[in-house]
């Protein structure tokens, strides 16, 4: 035994344990995100639970999805103000999503196992996803139009009834889309035109245009404005008609406690009956939800709906950043490796540049806010956007500044990787090219740089991966909780660099920590985190793959 310790074998096991623990933690973390994230989309069955209160012996009924359960000590439960029967040390409690927030007040409730009946999964339960107030769980009774019952659910006609409901939902969703299109698209365009006219007027004021010249321009502006306002009235009427039409049909539902509630089809996103679905249907619904999550816009303070603007914002920002960081990073690396005199100064510069990769990202954010936004942006506004002042155009956080800040942040990554790529090229190749009479620049651009592309690509992809996951600096320089418009759209000049954007990482922070209904938001946060992790892991793996591929490709050239 003593010898065993002396040989050091136990310590080897202990160091091995450290590796095991690290790997298990990594796997556990990824597994946790994956399990929680993927399960967000599963249409789980709706359980009906009868609960007898241990004190008053009153019975109550709950209808909802079982979210999770946990065991806590009776003492903790009692501290929280619950009555726990004597003799129980550990009690199990379930978190139940009962929905119906508008009717019941809370959509998530904890209930103890004692006093609970067995879970039943009654057929015919509707799970209604609504635009407001979260999900609704209940049993359908009838469809009404203008308060008049048109169709009632009877045992014989259930199939037909469900089909009618689905048709009504489809129609309501379609109407909703056309309303959105008018509000966002057409009216939005009119507003942009109006704003342009206002700016034009202001510019005239600023330029001091007066007299007859001003009068003609002003008349033109006024006539344009009148035309826009006429257009607006038409759209407004159209909208009013749509709204009125949409608010007519309602669905009468019965909650599990016997109360009735009527739900306007206008507020419905979708209706499913999970307890009646087959596994195949569930999988269909599952993928439908995943697709919706990736392509829809968020609802209800980001706690429901999809994350499309966040994905789009992240990708746009990273794209703009790449355009800026690649040329400068590559040129700087070439300079440091090929042109700069390799003396002490270069060495210091190189170490400094490398070290900037380790500087906290929030520092870049501070710099971006102070220098880019307040200083550069403020001056740009003063010179080019005078008419729009005092509302800032570039003097406020936005896409361009966010991208620029991240470009600065990732510059060291690109430089380091490109330099590594350049360093790996044998000097014989350079000398060979020079010996054949090529100039330095020819050697560089025709021989060295192509060989170093794997390094550059790796650097760029690593930079993208870092930028996609960075949140702290973005909170200061351009990312917001909810952006009304996407940074790229059909309006001239198509890419709006001054607009604020949404970002996946910030979305996680915002929804997880600043939302009023954390329990409801939690699954969505996991799903968003999963998306972000997937994006970053894919980017990193791509970096590795490209590097290997290009290395293979150029190996034959350099050998």
């Amino acid at each position, binding site marked *: 035994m003593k010898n065993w310790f002396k040989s050091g074998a136990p310590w*080897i*096991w202990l160091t091995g344990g450290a590796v095991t623990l690290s790997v298990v933690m990594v796997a556990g*973390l990824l597994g946790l995100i994956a399990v929680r994230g993927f399960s967000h989309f599963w249409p789980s069955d709706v359980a009906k639970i009868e609960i007898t209160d241990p004190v008053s012996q009153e019975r109550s009924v709950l209808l909802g999805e079982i979210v999770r359960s946990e065991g806590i000590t009776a003492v903790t439960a009692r501290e929280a103000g619950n009555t726990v029967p004597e003799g129980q040390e550990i009690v199990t409690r379930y978190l139940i999503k009962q929905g119906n927030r508008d009717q019941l007040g809370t959509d998530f409730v904890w209930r103890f196992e004692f006093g609970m009946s067995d879970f039943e999964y009654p057929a015919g339960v509707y799970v209604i996803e609504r635009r407001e107030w979260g999900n609704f769980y209940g049993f359908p009774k009838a469809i009404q139009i203008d308060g008049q019952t048109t169709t009632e659910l009877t045992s014989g006609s259930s199939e037909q009834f469900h089909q009618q409901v689905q048709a009504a939902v489809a129609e309501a969703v379609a109407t909703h889309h056309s309303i959105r299109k008018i509000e966002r698209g057409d009216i939005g365009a009119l507003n942009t035109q109006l704003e342009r006219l206002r700016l034009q007027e202001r510019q005239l004021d600023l330029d001091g245009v007066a007299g007859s010249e001003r009068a003609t321009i002003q008349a033109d502006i006024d006539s344009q404005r009148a035309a826009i306002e006429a257009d607006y009235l038409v759209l407004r009427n159209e909208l009013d008609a749509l709204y009125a039409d949409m608010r007519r049909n309602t669905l009468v539902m019965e909650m599990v406690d016997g109360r009735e509630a009527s739900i306007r089809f206008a507020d419905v996103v979708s209706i499913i009956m999970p307890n009646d679905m087959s596994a195949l249907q569930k999988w269909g619904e599952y993928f439908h939800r995943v697709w919706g999550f990736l392509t829809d816009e968020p609802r209800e303070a980001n706690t429901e709906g999809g994350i499309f603007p966040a994905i789009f914002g992240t990708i746009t920002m990273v794209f703009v950043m790449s355009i800026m960081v690649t040329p400068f990073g590559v040129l700087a690396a070439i300079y440091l490796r090929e042109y700069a005199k390799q003396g002490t100064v270069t060495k210091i510069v190189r170490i400094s540049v490398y070290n900037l990769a380790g500087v906290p990202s929030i520092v870049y954010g501070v710099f971006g806010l102070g220098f880019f936004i307040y200083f550069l942006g403020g001056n740009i506004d003063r010179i080019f956007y005078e008419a729009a002042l005092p509302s800032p155009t570039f003097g406020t956080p936005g896409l361009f500044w966010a991208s620029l800040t991240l470009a600065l942040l990732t510059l060291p990554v690109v430089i380091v990787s490109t330099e590594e790529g350049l360093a790996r090229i044998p000097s014989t190749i350079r000398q060979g090219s020079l010996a054949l009479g090529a100039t330095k620049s020819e050697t560089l651009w025709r021989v060295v740089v192509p060989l170093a592309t794997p390094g550059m690509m790796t650097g760029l992809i690593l930079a993208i*991966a870092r930028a996609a996951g960075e949140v702290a600096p973005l909170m*200061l320089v351009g990312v917001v909780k909810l952006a009304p418009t996407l940074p790229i759209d059909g309006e001239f000049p198509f890419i709006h660099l001054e607009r604020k954007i949404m970002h996946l990482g910030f979305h996680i922070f915002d929804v*997880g920590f600043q939302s009023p209904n954390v329990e409801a938001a939690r699954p969505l946060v996991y799903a968003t985190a999963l998306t*972000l992790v997937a994006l*970053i892991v894919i980017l990193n793996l791509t970096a590795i793959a490209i590097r290997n591929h290009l290395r293979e490709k150029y190996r034959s050239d350099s050998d």
Partner: protein
Amino acid sequence: MTESVASARGKANDSKLPSAELRAKRRRVRTLKDKISRIGITSAGYGVVFSLALIFIYLFYEVLPILKGASIEPQATFSLPGVTEQDPLAHLIMERYQELGVSFSAQGQVTFFNSKTGAVSKQEQVPVAEGLSTTTFAAGEAIGGLTAYGLSNGAVVFTKPHYELSFPNDQREITPRLSFPYGEAPIQVDPQGQPFTMLTIQESTRGRPQAFAVGLTVDQRLVAARIATRENLFTGAITTQVTRAELPEIPNTPTKMLVDKSFRNLFIADEAGNLHYLDLTDLNQARWVQSVDASPNDAITAMDFLVGSVSIIVGTEKGELSQWFLVRDEDNNYALERIRDFQPHNAAIRKIAPEYTRKGFVAVDDKGQVGLHYGTSSRTLLIEDAEQGPLHNVAMSPVDKAIFTLNNQQQVTYYSVWNEHPQLSLKALWSRVWYEGRSEPEYIWQSSSANDEFESKFSLMPLTVGTLKAAFFAMLFAMPLGIMAAIYTAYFMTPKLRGVVKPTIEIMEALPTVILGFLAGLWLAPFMESNLPAVFSLLLGLPLMMLLMAFAWKSMPSNVRNRVPAGWEAVLLIPIVVVFGYIAVVASPYIEVAFFDGSMRQWLTDNGITYDQRNALVVGVAMGFAVIPTIYSIAEDAVFNVPKHLTQGSLALGATPWQTMMGVVLPTASPGIFSALMIGFGRAVGETMIVLMATGNSPIVNFNIFEGMRTLSANIAVELPETAVGSSHFRILFLAALVLFTFTFILNTIAEVVRQRLRKRYSSL
């Protein structure tokens, strides 16, 4: 040579080569291209290096104004209008836009004049009834602007300058007038009708307007009156209600009096340089609480409140300036304490004028010096010889950007003032500061203000301690795991396994910290709270279980052992870790029931340990998780690159692998491991999202593992979007960024230099 050139020239037509001119031209083009490329790349290189350097330069540039003191610049001099030798000046103030000055004469003549020229814009007389005269004057807190004249019948008239703003032709126009918030009729303060020789007043800013006056009558009685107004909702008529009381006598002749805004505390300076404190909480039973000698062998010549009427600044005959306020002791008794002293002037202080929205003041003295001082930071920003002769009065602009001084020839000088960041000093940032209303000097970070009277508390200490606390616990978790895992992977693990394990751990470095932060805050923190025993049993039990497994493995028959070659121990341990982890979590509630009366959290609280759900333990684990890949990756490289002949030599001499590790590999690789730790530490120090999400972000100064913290970086993320550009708070956040930048930069540089040395050493071994 010459021949061949000649032949080339001669056979130009036969050669496939382009003509000489063309070749020369192409050469020129090529050279030009070469040059352009060189210039382009060089300038891009310089540009990038410069823009990276710009970060440091810019941060420094934003921080620099903090270090600057104050400066004053005389703009205009004119003789003070509205006063005569018979009717001298009682009070001098400046209006908010610094366009107007106001002089109150002793006999109630109020003159509004242009602050740059002295031209009178309006003159009004405070109404004094026939047969009465003004005997004394008093001014309340400058920001409220209430003033009062004591009349010869023991009554008081309150008045306040009022400015109406209008913008004809887009030009600001200020129309001043006197207003009488408590009515134009004098309010009888002394029931006996004696004239006052001295008066102090104050107006309460909370709730309905209320004024308070304390007067010293000619027969040396102190009388107090509280005046409340009520407006009739229907008629708009204002009725006033006056509560009067006589106060206890003090043993000496008063020279100055101040009553605070809560109407509870009265401070009186006497001829002998003593300060007396009277408690007026119960007006009818006012108590004389305390007397202190505020200026030994000296006399008090000026005294005024700082904004908020908590601190008193006392100026003396010898030019000393000190700050005092009431401090509460353990028994809830208040006593006046001398809090701090300012750089003294050379002569008797004549007048102290507080700033309107900050805890600063300007003082003038008998030798013509103007001094700008600041309470919280104990800073004297400027003492300048403004004039040869004595200065009698000084007025501060409500926005702290200008002052008036008055000399003995009744000449007013208007100075513009630059005094942007007086509340910051090394001492205010890094030492304990005695803030108003606190019982002792403390480190406090409290930057946001609810009102103008708020004393900003800019101590960076809580944030720095929070940063180090978070980094410390993160390193405590990451250091052993990272280094041990690196040692095992680099030295003991089979290459096949290493090829899988290393990238797996390294990919974690790319994992966005926002994800770690959200998991820590939303999953780990509640999990730990409800499974505290599991956390500790894992901490103690896991290493033990690993050793047990090692022993069990050793004791196994050799045919089992031989089935798994050395270097796979880590894989064998996976089930141990997973199963033990599972058991620990499942057993956790039972442990709580058995040992901690059912709730370990409650047990901790009962034993005097504060437990926050989002605490340093959570941060330590989450941030440790973020740091492990960094440490692991660099340390693993260092260990792996130790030249093989060293280890082989050691093994050949009979050392066991572990002995070789400890005796040969580790000493050689230790600089690399050191640099790994430096870089890891740098990352932990600057990490923002994890601490933002997994701590309560409360700026407290302690190292309790069960409490939260606020770090420099999280503080920047929280507060920077909400500060005013260019304010002191803004600059201080830039300073925090600069501190982070410099600190991590130095750490990384050390690490990098060490690493490069190591690389050189390896190549020479």
